[in-house]
């Protein structure tokens, strides 16, 4: 960036401003000095002054625009945000507001864990019974006490089919381990199912 380059824009601005002032002065002179009405001198001054003022106004704007462009290109002025990027920024803000609002609403209307568990069980029961897997019985608080048989059944039967994906449950080692036969963790499995159903798997 060179400072001397700005002399060009400064000269243009000065000449345009001088022309604007001179044009205004020429328009005023017939009235100020009492030129003969409709005389050639008055008409010349008015016409020339008016035209000069208009041209110099345009020139002033042009030189100002050019100088600002130059300053932006040199990094003196901050780059102006285009209309498109402003629009996208507004959209982004609106989307963030919507996401925040929906998050808040979700927290307000959190599902009842017992209801979710009941629904989940009713959905999973046909799937698991079709595949030869017995569903983990409901917790003791909701239904009759946990019988011993289903757990032993699962331990006896080798799981040969592909693992069943519980809705909302990620397919990873933990979810695979959920279906592997382990004799002593029937209650744990029930608890895990409860956590999956209530959406608190991460915390667990």
């Amino acid at each position: 960036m060179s400072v001397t380059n700005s002399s060009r824009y400064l000269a243009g601005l000065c000449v345009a401003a001088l022309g604007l002032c001179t044009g205004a002065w020429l328009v005023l002179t017939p009235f100020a000095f009492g030129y003969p009405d409709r005389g050639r001198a008055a008409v010349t001054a008015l016409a020339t002054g008016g035209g000069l003022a208009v041209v110099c106004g345009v020139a002033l704007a042009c030189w100002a625009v050019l100088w600002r462009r130059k300053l932006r290109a040199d990094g003196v002025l901050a780059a102006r945000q285009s209309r498109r990027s402003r629009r996208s920024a507004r959209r982004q803000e609106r989307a963030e507001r919507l996401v925040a609002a929906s998050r808040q609403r979700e927290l307000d209307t959190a599902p009842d864990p017992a209801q979710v568990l009941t629904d989940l069980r009713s959905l999973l029961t046909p799937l698991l019974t079709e595949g030869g897997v017995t569903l983990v019985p409901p917790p003791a608080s909701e239904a009759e006490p946990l019988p011993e048989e289903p757990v032993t059944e699962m331990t006896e039967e080798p799981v040969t089919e592909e693992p069943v994906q519980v809705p909302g449950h990620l397919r990873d080692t933990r979810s695979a381990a959920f279906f592997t036969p382990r004799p002593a963790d029937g209650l744990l499995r029930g608890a895990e199912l409860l956590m999956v159903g209530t959406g608190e798997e991460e915390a667990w």
Partner: protein
Amino acid sequence: MVNRVAMVALVVVFGAGGWLIAAPFVLRFQPSGAHWTGASRMDVLVGAVLAVAGFAGFFVALAGRVREMYQDSRR
């Protein structure tokens, strides 16, 4: 485009100055050989100022533009 308009406006300022100097004699509201009227004196004075300013401004702007072009070609 804006650059050209700005440069042309400087030329117009110079032209307006020249016109204001010549107007009293071209339009004959200043008879030759007679004492100069106030209007003629004002027009010639203002025209001279405008012509000088327009001339100087145009060439300063042109020189600046040429310098910018040299700098751009060196990059």
